[in-house]
């Protein structure tokens, strides 16, 4: 949620409407079925879908608005529609012109066309170009309002103290003492199990928090740490899989195969680390509820608000200011629910702010996983066995996503679901991060063991020409591999190749150069926005490759702030070489598909340069 879509969606409307860019402004939509993503049937920024799903509706919106203006102008001016030219926000007629706005009143009385005539590609004025982002001037001039900046009259503040271990809830606390503290208005146990404290200033909440004495319920995770969790996930694979699918005859083929590798990969919980933590202002007065939330889903924010307040739909309003990062985390509406519950209790506006420690403790991480990859074949790989033990997302579908890039004659895919009290959620690219790492690194381990070229090996088994062309393109741009690592992965409708060169400096990994080639399908709306997403995804992908690991100790988060949860910094960014390609395929997404390929490309470079395998992320050569 870098909010490039504010520009991306607006320019599509402005293009069809023929409206001057410098006069365009954007505000976020309220929660309403009017604004539903037609494919998802809700309002949700996720799955790299914003432009992919909304391009056509936005084009139609702009085109039908233009048609309405033309129709209204023809009525107001008594000139046939065909004799009018609409351009640059103006209606031109008989050597004169008038701004669109002059005809709005009449236009409002007309019915918009449902199937307006859309422009031909050659007529686009913005699509394919990179007009400046609309949100950047306010963001650098202290004019932008983020979720945490929300204000209301007589605003109260709240914190939510979370349990030290996952899966436990507050049973009781020293409420009467807390209520006597300065400025404290209320304190109670929230449905989430956290202890909410409401006070007249944020700092009063923090002072009161220090005095809290909470009795927490027992946690099923008591005593658990990362090592034991990995053990638990690994052992899960000794039992029956939750789902098993196969093709060809893997059982018989494996006996015939002359080449074979089997690797186990351990990948940790990942924390979203939005720099703006979870925060929400809710204002419930008994009759209506206003929610100001930096949410990725107005629909889910609305649903939890309705659930808690039982108000009629029309009395609930969801406002979305700018989000200080989302990466999937802010589509979970738990923090919204807490704010609404807090406000409902006191019938006054309450702004809930998670501290960094609260935010980490709230969980909703990318799940930890253990994957076992077996690749077998003769002169080329012909069998893939992929087993993953992880906490399921999307009913388990996320666990096995992105395993179909290559044509293996025999496959065995098994999912071992682990149910655990550590909450997990969508983290940019979701299941693709673990799976692309496992497969892409395993392929190179196979290639190295059997003295094959990693590029040629992929060319031999990649499924389609689009993927092969992209890989060839990337390889040609890079030149001689010479210890560089390749990774390919397709997700969210786009295809991506990364090539990375890494070296060791004492025990730290220095990534010198990364090339990314992305084929986004047939439509490139705003090249610079795509580039921004690629740049950001490389950084996030490299961050997960080299730094990120959420440590669990005694059933709770041990990493509580940025000293113990590492993130990539500016001096660690390699030289970037980014290539954005289009093809005849349907339009793909760009927010997520680049993240998964970075870690395997780096691991593969270390493999070819030093013979070091990476069976555990983040990469920490010893």
């Amino acid at each position, binding site marked *: *949620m*870098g*909010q*490039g879509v504010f520009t991306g969606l607006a320019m599509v409307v402005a293009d069809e409407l023929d409206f001057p860019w410098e006069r365009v402004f954007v505000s976020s939509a309220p929660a309403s079925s009017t604004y539903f993503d037609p494919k998802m049937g809700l309002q949700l920024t996720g799955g790299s879908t914003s432009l992919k799903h909304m391009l056509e509706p936005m084009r139609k919106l702009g085109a039908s608005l233009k048609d309405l203006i033309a129709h209204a102008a023809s009525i107001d001016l008594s000139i046939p529609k065909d004799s009018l030219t609409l351009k640059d926000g103006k209606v031109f007629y008989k050597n004169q012109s008038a701004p669109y706005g002059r005809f709005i009143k009449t236009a409002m009385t007309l019915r918009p066309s449902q199937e307006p005539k859309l422009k031909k590609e050659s007529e686009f004025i913005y699509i394919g170009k990179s007009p*400046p*982002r609309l*949100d*950047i*001037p306010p*963001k*650098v*001039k*202290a004019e*932008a*309002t*983020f979720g*945490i*900046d929300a*204000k209301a009259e007589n605003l109260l*503040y709240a914190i939510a103290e979370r349990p030290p271990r996952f899966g436990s809830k507050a049973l009781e606390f020293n409420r009467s003492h807390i209520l006597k503290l*300065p400025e404290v208005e209320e304190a109670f146990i929230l449905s989430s199990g956290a202890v909410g404290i409401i006070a007249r*200033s*944020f*700092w*009063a909440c923090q*002072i009161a928090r220090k005095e809290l004495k909470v009795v927490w319920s027992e946690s099923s995770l008591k005593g658990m740490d990362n090592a034991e969790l990995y053990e638990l996930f690994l052992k899960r694979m000794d039992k029956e899989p939750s789902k098993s699918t196969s093709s060809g005859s893997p059982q018989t083929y494996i006996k015939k195969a002359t080449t074979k590798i089997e690797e186990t990969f351990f990948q940790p919980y990942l924390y979203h*680390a*939005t*720099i*703006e*933590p979870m925060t929400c202002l809710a204002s419930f007065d008994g009759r209506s509820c206003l929610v100001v939330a930096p949410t990725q889903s107005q629909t889910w924010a609305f649903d939890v608000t309705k659930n808690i307040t039982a108000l009629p739909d029309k009395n609930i309003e969801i406002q979305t200011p*700018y*989000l*200080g*990062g*989302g*990466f999937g985390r802010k589509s979970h509406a738990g923090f919204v629910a807490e704010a609404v519950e807090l406000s409902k209790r006191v019938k006054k506006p309450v702004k809930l*702010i998670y*501290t*960094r*420690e609260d935010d980490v403790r709230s969980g909703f991480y990318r799940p930890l996983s253990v994957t076992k990859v077996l690749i077998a074949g003769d002169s080329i790989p012909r069998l893939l066995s992929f087993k993953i033990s992880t906490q399921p997302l999307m009913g388990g579908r996320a666990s096995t996503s992105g395993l179909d890039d290559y044509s293996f004659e025999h496959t065995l895919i098994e999912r071992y679901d682990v149910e655990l009290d550590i909450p997990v959620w969508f983290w940019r690219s979701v299941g693709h991060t673990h799976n692309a790492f496992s497969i892409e690194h395993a392929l190179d381990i196979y290639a190295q063991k059997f003295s094959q070229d990693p590029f040629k090996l992929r060319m031999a088994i990649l499924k389609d020409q689009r993927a092969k062309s992209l890989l060839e393109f990337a390889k040609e741009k890079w030149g001689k591999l010479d210890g560089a690592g390749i990774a390919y992965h397709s997700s969210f409708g786009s295809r991506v190749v990364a090539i990375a060169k890494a070296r060791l400096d004492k025990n730290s990994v220095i990534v010198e150069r990364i090339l990314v080639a992305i084929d986004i399908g047939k439509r490139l709306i705003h090249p*610079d926005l795509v580039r*921004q997403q690629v*740049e*950001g995804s*490389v*950084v*996030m992908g490299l*961050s997960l490759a080299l730094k990120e690991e959420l440590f669990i100790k005694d059933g709770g988060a041990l990493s509580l*702030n*940025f*000293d113990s949860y590492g*993130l*990539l*910094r*500016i*001096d*660690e*960014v390699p030289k*970037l070489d980014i290539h954005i390609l289009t093809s005849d395929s349907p339009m793909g997404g760009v927010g997520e598909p680049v993240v998964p390929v970075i870690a395997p490309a780096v691991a593969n470079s270390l493999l070819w340069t030093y013979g070091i395998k990476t069976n555990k992320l983040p990469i920490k050569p010893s």
Partner: protein
Amino acid sequence: MLTKTLSVNSQKRQIRFYESEPLLWVLRERLNLKSVKFGCGVGLCGACTVVIDGQPVRSCTILAKDINGNILTLEGLDKSHPVIKSWISFQVPQCGYCQSGFIMSVYAMTLKKPLPNASEVLSFLSSHICRCGTYERITKAVRSIFPE
């Protein structure tokens, strides 16, 4: 609580706050200077950076009661300052949440005499975090302002 007059963006502001209250919360919630962002609360991310008497300071780690200098936040920075202009021309921000902290740190670097070179500035900026990963553009913007 105590009452104190702070000098913020060339204005004297009399304000009540707690003895233990970090400058960050006084600026953003009591004085409504919302560009001063809360990120970590312990000086690890740089989102709350303000400039006090020419020095970049993490406002989450210092107490408001201890501040006697002139505080500058992004609200008080000249909007035609080269740092802001370069941030626009390189289209740096994505979500933008961390950017006011970056901008204030870079602005403070422009006040140094002699002017630091770009590598020195970037090395200083490694104490800031941008989760959207706008580092490449920040690097370009910094290189456009400072000598090599």
